[in-house]
């Protein structure tokens, strides 16, 4: 293994069905149901997945859902906005923890 992340590994995701295929099958059933057209369209769900992929910084998911977003009719403007949503929440998450910092500092400080 030359690198921790290998693009070819995305196509091998189903290897995780080996050894415990019943767990994989349950996951895939759930996965398929989650991404099916529902109250949200497949395009909207793909955009959410793209944002989450950036939030969790998963290169496999970014690869997969960049493709999926395009296939499902999203364009680069929409995909860029989705990534900004992820970025805003990640940044906001850090900032809101600053309240904890301030609480501690205010309790201890003079």
């Amino acid at each position, binding site marked *: 293994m030359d690198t921790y992340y290998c693009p070819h590994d*995305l196509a091998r*995701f*189903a290897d995780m069905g080996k050894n415990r295929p019943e767990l994989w099958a349950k996951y*895939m059933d759930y*996965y*398929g149901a989650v*991404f099916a*057209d529902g109250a949200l*369209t*497949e*395009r*909207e769900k793909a955009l959410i997945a793209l944002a989450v992929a950036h939030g969790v910084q998963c290169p*496999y*998911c970014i690869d*997969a*859902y960049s*493709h*999926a977003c*395009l*296939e*499902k*009719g999203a*364009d*680069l*403007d*929409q995909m860029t906005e989705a990534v900004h949503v992820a970025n805003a929440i990640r940044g906001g998450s850090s900032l809101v923890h600053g309240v904890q910092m301030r609480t501690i500092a205010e309790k201890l400080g003079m």
Partner: protein
Amino acid sequence: MPSLLAARHPLSRPEEQLVALARTGAPEFEAVLRERLLAPLHADHIDVLQVNVGKLCNQTCAHCHVDAGPDRREIMSRETAEKVVELLRRHPIPTLDVTGGAPELNPQFRFLVGEARALGRRVIDRCNLTVLGIAGQADLAGFLAAHHVEVIASLPSFRRAGTDAQRGDGVFERSVAGLRALNAAGYGCGTGLVLNLIHNPVGAFLPGGQASLERDYRRELGARHGIVFDRLLTIANMPISRFLEFLERTGNTRAYVDLLVRSFNPAAVPGVMCRTHLSVGWDGSLYDCDFNQMLELPVAQGAPATLDALLHDGRLARHVRTDRHCFGCTAGAGSSCGGATAGSGVLTPSPQ
């Protein structure tokens, strides 16, 4: 933008296109069909006579498999159009599907429509929408409505960016104006005048699920532009002509053809259009589909190859000729002039 032919691009030649597809290392389509016991493809009867009245168009779209444009002059003559009508008169083919180019720009378009409707046939116009707004076509929406022509209109995205990227700057706004004109004429409003839209990907990937995309189109076009339509049909881009030039220029040919081959869906084979269509060229030559026509692959040896021969011979059944581009009709949910041919979302790139 000039057509590939006007630019004297090597890929304007069908033989160069077939060589480029072979260079990808893709298997022969017929061999894959044989492996699955699906060969040979055979057309037993004709439901749709698809007539390409020529390559003249007011647009020069980046993905066009016809290499159509304002600089093309190949258009069907009155003499050939009359032979099309005679064929319809002699054979009870239920549907005449008129395509181009922009078919409405051909002086024979209204003649073909009128005669076919007088024979009681369903008539489809494959419309680029912007043609409704050009000089001399102000009465086009009314003409189509008066003849109860079914309109199948190209709109790759419900947003400006995608549509203009594929079809040219300003096309989205003019397409919306065209859709409004069709709606005003009664199309897509539940009056029986059918308005279907075509989505094809704006790039080197397959279309998403037809039903889900239709929901997005319906909501977005309705809320933002007040437009209604009947159905959305998804069509994959065929790796020939101008889309092949795009693939070659961007280094995507092998990956795209690999995607088509990997996504081969046997369930899409029974619905491929060549099994129920006969394609007529502007000069009266016959093909299994519009894509074979553009690759200059005529019907199989032994079958009538021209309107004249068919009017003399009368045999409509034939074996279908295939090549590597045919993977474009069997990938994922399948693709045809009538949209997806199998269940949606069969194979999409996701971590599964």
